[in-house]
């Protein structure tokens, strides 16, 4: 079983991100359970979305406290919350970097991958929604999912220009981390 926790603010598309990620796992033949946890139920409020995935149907219905992977959509959340709380010893965090926001020190076997997902999104989609760039980065950072599966997922969810833009965002997010890993 793998557990992924997404940190975002309501309105930033975290539920969509969780559902896209879940769908990509579904295409892989796995059994994902993607679910949100709302805080104050208003735009801008900190919230989490989660994906729990296994090779058999997921039965566990609690929130995720010890994630294998973190996706931090809004880096400013790291100022007020310990987004890394419970991250597994060998856990991986994918972070939408933001100038002036420091990433906390992590364990020796934990890894953090930063990328300018909003900049990528502005160039590819025209809006500062870095979710698909972050998902591309997730594929590169974790090797959990084939990038083509993510493309298939985006094609299912978006059409027209939004589809093209999001596929390009995912590709650039993937390449950014791939190059970082090489470098």
């Amino acid at each position: 079983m793998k557990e992924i926790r997404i940190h975002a603010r309501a309105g930033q598309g975290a539920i969509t991100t969780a559902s896209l990620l879940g769908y990509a796992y579904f295409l892989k033949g796995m059994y994902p359970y993607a679910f949100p946890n709302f805080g104050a139920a208003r735009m801008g409020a900190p919230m989490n979305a989660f994906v729990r995935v296994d090779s058999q149907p997921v039965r566990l219905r609690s929130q995720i406290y010890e994630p294998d992977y973190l996706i931090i959509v809004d880096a400013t959340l790291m100022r007020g919350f310990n987004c890394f709380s419970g991250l597994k010893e060998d856990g991986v965090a994918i972070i939408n970097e933001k100038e002036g926001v420091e990433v906390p020190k992590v364990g020796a076997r934990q890894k953090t991958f930063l990328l300018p997902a909003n900049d990528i999104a502005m160039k590819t989609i025209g809006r500062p929604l870095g979710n698909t760039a972050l998902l591309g980065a997730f594929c590169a950072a974790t090797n959990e999912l084939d990038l083509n599966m993510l493309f298939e997922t985006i094609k299912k969810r978006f059409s027209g220009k939004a589809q093209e833009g999001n596929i390009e965002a995912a590709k650039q997010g993937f390449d950014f981390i791939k190059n970082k890993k090489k470098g």
Partner: protein
Amino acid sequence: MKEFLEGSHAVAEVVKLCKPGVVSAYPITPQTHIVEDLAQMVSDGTLKAEFVNVESEHSAASVVLGGEAAGVRSYTATSSQGLLYMAEVVFNIAGLRLPVVMTCANRAISAPINIWNDHQDSVSLRDTGWVQLFAENIQEAADFHLLAYRLGEDKSMMLPVMVCMDGFILTHGIETVDIPTQEQVDKFLPPYKALYKLDVENPISIGPLVDPEYYLETRYALQKTLEEALVLIPKLTAEFSKVFGRTYNGLVEGYRLEDAERAIVAMGSVCGTVKDVVDELRKKGKKVGLLKITSYRPFPIAAIYDALKNVPKVAVLDRAVSLGSFAPLASEVRAVFTGKKKAPKVISSFVVGLGGRDITKHSIKEIYSLLTAKELHGEYIDLKPELLTPEFKG
């Protein structure tokens, strides 16, 4: 076909396949996505139904009452305050023997206002004469709507059915669901033919004043019919299994109970979490199990007795309270064993997860560890003492 769907969307898809002629609802979190989807289907023409926009849940319930009274399959959905606002009509629908199907996206009750999950809404309406089926996962939530129409519309029943699914956890969760084909659904669920209906050509009166000479028998008949439902439900689930390939008991589901020394009794999505804990503890050699109650109304007294009569220690989980008395599910499970020779030595009662307080594997493990020779009554799990004033800290 297997799809990756949000619980609300899966329910809407299955309701569409049931071809209701009247849908009416008033939006309330976390039920809203279901009826938004149905409204879209009606607008797109993929569901040939009358979608009646109303100004309140009381009116939504009244519209589906009217739809069914005119002989048309009808559907509504609600949560929490919405269900309470419907309450008067909910009793009427059962008393009139109208097989309405309603989804209750279970949510806590105000005050204080809380949009998250517990079972207080539908549990508070347990005495209305409606069947209440609790779903563990999204597949069950979807499938139980098929069962609901088939059961309620059976000529021997004529009962309304409420499908209860945990708000957010199942309504907003997304997982793999097998959505049946129209052919399968048509095979299982024939078109609805009302026994009696409002018809201008052949006028009848329904629900008139009934004086003390007659009222008692109407309640007796409802009670007897609900008892008969306990016999019919397993027959229908057997037939369901033949058509759809998924097997449910429909009343209860025992999980690793055969040699269990300690068992948890629960309803709804928490049963999945309990199953994972059971497997973990079994690996460590602990003889633990779960009894999932699917049919809360009618209450499957005999099935619960059979499943638990040889289990020495039983913990009942309530996600609702009966303020000022025992927890509701626990008091009924205890009643099952009143005067019986074979019975658990201990039936302890635990209140968990009110207002969306997360129920973790740790919560469940704590319940198993508190399940000792000392019987507990309404023990609150995951309570935060720091939030209580000193006199309540105990």
